[in-house]
């Protein structure tokens, strides 16, 4: 039976070999998505691209958040400087900017803030489609944490590099592996600030609708109109977007436009109480109470709807207007 000390040595040796093996095999799990790209480059995406026109704002002090945001906002046609964005996203006591505030600030400038799915594929797809992507990286090592926003503006896969507007660098070239290592720690957080008439390459119907609605609620109703219009071109059957666009027209007094949108939506959803009601109200405002009444009565038949109270009001109003006209 070996001495306890010898046992201890063997155990240490085993632990060392084990750690080494884990370290070597660990490369794949270190940068799993970069490894996955070796096997499957996203279909239809060019191997190299660079958005050279994207502006550059060198970062001041700790303000990489405002600098990154200004980069994509100006690219999306907003007239803004990092200094103006400091008031919207910078938190002095944290010497930095929170992710949610980055999204919220874009909305306040009438741009659709769209968080990407946490995938390298989606990041590359967006850049290839011409959309610079804000990413959150942790550029610290080990226990040191150093959160940093940068903007991905291109990549060259054969050369193994991504190109970023980052801090003081106008064009930081960084290997895919290193980039993923720093990006992974933010759970692959990335966002776009889209001009309202454009739709991200990786947008999903529900997530992009939510992004538009969030922008509309944040205060810029005017920007919501082209956003809903573009959305409906892509997903013409969406009820909420149809109602959203029609409501924008209605609020501006463009009743004919509102009516046209609602009719198209109704064709896809003949039983939607909200569409029936809003179309009835719009037609009644246009003086076409007979058509309006027929629609309101169709809506009334669905008494279980959450909008039943509104339908009753609309119905009563139409009857009242008809009585007055006779």
């Amino acid at each position, binding site marked *: 039976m070996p001495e306890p000390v010898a046992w201890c040595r063997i155990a240490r040796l085993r632990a060392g070999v084990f750690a080494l093996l884990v370290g070597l095999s660990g490369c794949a799990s270190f940068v799993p998505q970069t490894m996955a790209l070796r096997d499957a480059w996203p279909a239809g995406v060019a191997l190299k691209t660079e958005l050279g026109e994207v502006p550059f704002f060198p*970062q001041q002090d*700790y*303000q*990489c958040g405002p600098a*990154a945001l200004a980069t994509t906002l100006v690219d999306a046609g907003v007239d803004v400087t990092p200094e103006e964005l400091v*008031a919207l996203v910078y*938190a002095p*006591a*944290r*010497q*930095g*900017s*929170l*992710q*949610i*505030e*980055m999204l*919220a*600030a874009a*909305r*306040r400038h009438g741009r659709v803030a769209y968080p990407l799915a946490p995938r390298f594929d989606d990041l590359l797809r967006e850049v290839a489609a011409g959309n610079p992507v804000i990413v*959150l990286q*942790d*550029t610290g*090592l080990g226990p040191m944490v*150093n*959160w*940093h*926003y940068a903007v991905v503006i291109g990549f060259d*896969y054969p*050369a*193994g590099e991504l190109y970023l507007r980052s*801090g*003081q660098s106008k064009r930081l070239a960084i*290997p*895919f*592996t*290193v980039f993923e*290592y*720093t990006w992974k720690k*933010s759970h692959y957080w990335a966002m776009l600030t889209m001009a309202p008439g454009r739709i991200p390459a990786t947008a999903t119907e529900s997530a992009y609708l*939510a992004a538009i*609605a969030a922008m509309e609620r*944040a*205060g810029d109703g005017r920007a919501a109109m082209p956003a809903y219009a573009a959305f409906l071109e892509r997903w013409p059957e969406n*009820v*909420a977007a149809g*109602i959203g666009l029609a409501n924008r027209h*209605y*609020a501006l007094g463009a009743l004919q436009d509102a009516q046209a949108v609602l009719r198209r939506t109704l064709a896809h959803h003949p039983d939607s*109480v*909200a569409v029936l*009601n*809003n179309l009835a*109200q*719009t037609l009644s405002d246009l003086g076409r109470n007979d058509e309006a009444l027929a629609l309101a009565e169709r809506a009334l038949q669905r008494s279980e709807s*959450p909008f039943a109270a*509104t339908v009753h*009001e*609309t119905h009563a109003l139409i009857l009242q207007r008809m009585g007055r006209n006779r």
Partner: protein
Amino acid sequence: MKSALTRMICRFLAIAVMALPFQGVQAGMVGTDQVNSAASVQTDRSVVLNYLSRSQTVNELQALGLDPQSARDRVAAMTDDEVGTLAGQISAAPAGGDAGAVVVLALVIFAIWYFAFRR
């Protein structure tokens, strides 16, 4: 005791209703927000909780050095889900700020890896 609690809940509800971002375009029209939230049930409880999360987040932002008005404006631009995520978590949430110096250290150590394999 009970009446004091009831009164407090009533106050919250009253404020919550006033603070509701729901606005029909006009009487008679179903609003866009109403359609969007019809699927996710907007109970009284969720309305009050959301109101509380929002005021908590405003307070937390003020604690980070913002003036009350801009803290309120910033929170107003967040969605209900976002406020729910952030409330109480602000000090733990990542704040991208980048001191800069650490990057250099990181790059030096990554240099070996850089030349070993880049993609």
